[in-house]
């Protein structure tokens, strides 16, 4: 059997929502014409970054099969995710693709002991025999720096946020998935704990060969851990490429703005200039032309009327007219 080249492939992926407010209603593109590929056999951490409301969570939900795309194609190992039957999803897809959610406490029922999910996953996918479940789970937990003794019989609220998130990752690892979709996995955690989770992703990629889609608004951890990054703005992927390039030397004014806005724990790098804020998020979605035009320091006239296409430039794709004339 020939292995498909792409582990995950998005082509012109679009998700349209209706938003109603009072007596009026608008359609908006939460994800608009997204294109990217993750290659089989080459594990990487692919970061999707952007502000809240940039469409990154919608994208994650589509990859996990929780939302259906409105337009375009999204395939996993060559199969369109939207067409998977319920049974196919349970017997195959879910063992291949696993999620890690933002809030580890919300990801587990507060009324259930947390190990319940671990044993369920083992049992449902028949990973090992029942008698070996304890041992197997212990092994997985050790990979995330925990042991079964710390976890067994405990309710989620008896664990710290970091521990709970590790359990969530351990649960995702049980089926030995090829792809983990982690949606803001560290944003609820203290800064000091974030590194341990992010480090774990790096380890999992290298040692277990898992591809991880790391969705975050924290560019620092993305820079630290990811191989590639896609920066999203109001449904658009505005800049995508290797993380060293995109974040080391951001080209899109929005990426630049994002990077500048990160407060650094370094007294030598405090901000000197002020920034512009969007007043109404929803307005930017429906704006004509470039969606960043309203607060772009380098805005040009055509930005306000035309949607910029994606330009290949300096090893990345940039969706900005500034790079129109540059050679790919």
């Amino acid at each position, binding site marked *: 059997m020939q292995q498909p080249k792409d582990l995950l492939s998005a082509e012109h992926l679009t998700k349209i929502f*209706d*938003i*109603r*407010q*009072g*007596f*009026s*209603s608008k359609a908006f593109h939460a994800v608009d014409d997204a294109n990217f590929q993750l290659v089989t056999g080459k594990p990487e951490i692919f970061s999707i970054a952007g502000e809240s409301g940039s469409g990154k969570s919608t994208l994650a939900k589509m990859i996990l099969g929780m939302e259906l795309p409105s337009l375009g194609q999204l395939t996993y190992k060559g199969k369109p995710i939207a067409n998977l039957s319920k049974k196919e999803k349970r017997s195959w897809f879910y063992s291949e693709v696993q999620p890690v959610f933002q809030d580890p406490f919300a990801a587990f029922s507060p009324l259930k002991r947390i190990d319940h999910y671990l044993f369920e996953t083992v049992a449902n996918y028949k990973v090992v025999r029942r008698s070996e479940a304890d041992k197997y789970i212990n092994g997985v937990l050790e990979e995330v720096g925990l042991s079964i003794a710390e976890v067994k019989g405990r309710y989620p609220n008896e664990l710290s946020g970091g521990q709970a998130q590790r359990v969530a990752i351990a649960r995702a690892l049980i089926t030995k998935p090829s792809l983990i979709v982690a949606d803001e996995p560290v944003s609820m955690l203290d800064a000091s704990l974030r590194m341990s989770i992010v480090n774990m992703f790096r380890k999992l990629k290298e040692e277990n060969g898992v591809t991880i889609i790391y969705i975050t608004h924290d560019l620092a951890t993305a820079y630290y851990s990811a191989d590639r990054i896609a920066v999203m703005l109001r449904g658009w992927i505005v800049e995508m490429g290797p993380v060293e390039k995109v974040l080391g030397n951001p080209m899109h004014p929005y990426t630049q703005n994002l990077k500048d806005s990160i407060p650094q724990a370094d007294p030598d790098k405090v901000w000197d200039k002020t920034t512009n804020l969007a007043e109404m998020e929803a307005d930017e979605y429906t704006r004509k032309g470039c969606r960043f035009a309203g607060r772009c320091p380098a805005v040009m006239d055509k930005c306000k009327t035309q949607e910029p296409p994606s330009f290949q430039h300096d090893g990345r794709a940039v969706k900005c007219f500034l790079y129109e004339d540059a050679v790919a």
Partner: protein
Amino acid sequence: MKLLRTFILPRIVQYLIVIFVGITLTFLIPRLSPINPVDNALGRLTAFQTMSPEATVALRESLMDLYGLNGNLLQQYFSFWKRVVAFDLGPSFTVFPTPVTKLIGSSIGWTIGLLSLSIVIAWILGLILGTLAGFFPNSWWARTMENSLIVVYPIPYYIVAFVLLMLLTYYLPIFPLVGGSKGAPGFTWSYLSSLVYYGFLPALSLIIGGVAFRFIISKALTSTERSSDYVRFAEMAALPKHKILFSYLIRNTLLPQVTDLGLSLGLIFEGALITEAVYGYPGIGSLLLSAINSADYNVIMGITLLSIFGIATASLLVDLSYPLIDPRVRYS
């Protein structure tokens, strides 16, 4: 107008379906009853009168004809719809040929007056008391009030009404026994004050139960709302308690309860049944009860129809007006 298509129209279609189902049910159920209105009328007419057998048969024939009960169920159903569309609910069987609309018309004012007033009073009182109790959960009066209302709440409504009746008309003969007013209707002090006097006990009994219910709900809502961030923030800013109570707590707990109020006003048409039976109040409930007992189909259907129409319309209006009442609501 996408909203019209995706929200308002479906809601109106649903409204029409509800009314159709309701009307059909009200048509069918009395007809499934073993009580035949003609026999009933005949029973009434011949109860005291010695009538010759031949005359009885003749009378029966003419009554069937008069009441429009000839023809099969389907034919009756169609002619029924024809009448409904023309707002003609037919004649009453017991007081033939008085039109049902006239009977309902002369009863409904009483019920609407009594019920709407007592529902609104109970709603306001319950809301205020419940909110206060939720705001001062540890005060002795809040606890006393809660405990006593929890005991009052489960008492079947009939009993509250009956005990009040005995207390205030028999042991302490303060209130009148029966009726809705005194003397001739008119805008005179004596007539208007008699309305209050005659309506006082029925209203009181309705209010007691209503307050208990509203109190329990308001208190629960307030307790939740009280620990919310914006109340905490206002308290931290040392805003006066009454300000927090009225502009913050009540304003916020109000919204779900306005829906309730709308729906319970819609329930007016049935809510009166027991009150009116106990107090001999001349409203729609008394009318319905006697109609059920005498199998007066047309009256039963008329009232049920009105009631379905009332509740359905009330809930439609509440739904449609929600975005106007609550600035936060979004439909999705």
